[in-house]
């Protein structure tokens, strides 16, 4: 058990609304992607879940217990933030030992073995690390915390392709060995779309999408062909994006694709292709208001 329930949460900074009456449930033993454009309210939501901010209205619970000033609920969560929250004069090893004090389930051996894999020297001071290695030290601390809920805010900031690949693999291995609730808040959607089971999209201060990746992608398709034939095909359908190059046109359409659609497309010489989660995200949040 490690279920996060966000119920009717609103958050105002003065008169500025950051989250407007949102409700969402993060179920146990699933990997979630928390997506949204810059300033959409992702970090605000994560800070509310981890009791770093107080909501203006609403309630958040972990396994039924409120998160406000409640160690019992909060200690189930390990939150990797974008910012460094500790004194940067400490070494990586000291951070591990310090975390071990607060998280009884912290696995020191696992942390050191991850340092080996990522080629991070535990004797290094945090302030001497590059952006990438700073992220890596935080990733390792989070993975090794063994908390029931792991939250990563922009985990791959500054990581090169090799280290990103390694992180995704270690994350999955960790999750399979001991299932837990994982929330990945990120802008790099395409790389992680197959890792995720569910996706929550915040747009314009509200929850825009809350569904499984499979359902989201199963409910959209891309079709292309000659401009006139595409125009004919999209009549009465729901295109979220249309791209045209000379006489060629492609349309991304939301809705289920059935045999009749396939037959109609075949007659018009149209071709279907996969919609990527990232592209769908771009189309659906195009109108999102920036703060």
């Amino acid at each position, binding site marked *: 058990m490690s279920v996060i329930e966000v119920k009717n949460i609103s958050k105002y900074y003065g008169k500025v609304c950051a989250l407007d009456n949102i409700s969402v449930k993060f179920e146990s033993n699933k990997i979630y992607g928390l997506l949204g454009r810059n300033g959409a309210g992702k970090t605000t939501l994560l800070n509310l879940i981890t009791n770093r901010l107080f909501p203006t209205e609403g309630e958040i619970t972990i396994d039924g217990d409120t998160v406000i000033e409640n160690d019992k609920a909060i200690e189930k969560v390990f939150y990797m933030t974008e910012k460094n929250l500790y004194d940067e004069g400490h070494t990586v090893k000291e951070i591990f030992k310090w975390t071990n004090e607060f998280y009884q389930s912290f696995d020191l051996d696992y942390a050191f073995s991850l340092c080996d894999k990522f080629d991070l020297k535990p004797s290094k001071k945090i302030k001497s690390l590059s952006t990438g290695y700073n992220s890596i030290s935080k990733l390792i601390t989070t993975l090794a915390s063994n908390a029931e809920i792991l939250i990563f805010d922009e985990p791959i900031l500054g990581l090169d392709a090799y280290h990103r690949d390694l992180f*995704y693999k270690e994350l999955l*291995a960790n999750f399979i060995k001991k299932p837990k609730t994982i929330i990945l808040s990120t802008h790099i959607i395409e790389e992680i779309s*197959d*890792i995720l*089971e569910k996706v929550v999209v915040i747009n314009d201060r509200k929850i825009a999408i809350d569904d499984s990746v499979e359902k989201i992608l*199963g409910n959209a398709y891309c079709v292309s062909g000659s401009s006139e034939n595409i125009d004919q095909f999209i009549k009465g359908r729901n295109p979220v994006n249309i791209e045209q190059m000379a006489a060629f046109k492609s349309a991304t359409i939301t809705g289920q694709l059935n045999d009749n659609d396939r037959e109609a497309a075949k007659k018009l010489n149209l071709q279907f*292709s*996969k919609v990527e989660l990232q592209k769908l995200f771009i189309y659906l949040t195009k109108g999102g208001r920036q703060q």
Partner: protein
Amino acid sequence: MFLDFNSEIPIYLQIAQSVEDDIIKGIFKEETQIPSTTEISVSYKVNPATVAKGFNILVEEGIVYKKRGVGMFVKEGARNKLKEKRKENFYITYIERLLEEAKKLDISVGEIIKMIERSS
């Protein structure tokens, strides 16, 4: 095992098809183990629930079976069963598509037959 992440076919179906392919090719032999959920999930960076969904198809079709605490094994007779299934689909998957493309290019059936005879 080969997965195409740009394909229109969902990943869980590709996982099932890919294991089937390797059984037909004789890479995964009958009564031997296929890769574990962990192996596929970690090496292809795919959610384990997606892999499990692919495996379920194979279990339901009677292609593989689960040995408790060990993993998934290829059933006896799986290879022939898969060959029969693929033969049934051969017309739709290959012949229909071939004729479609040929029609676009104005290639007659007679010409296609000549091509096949030349290559065999």
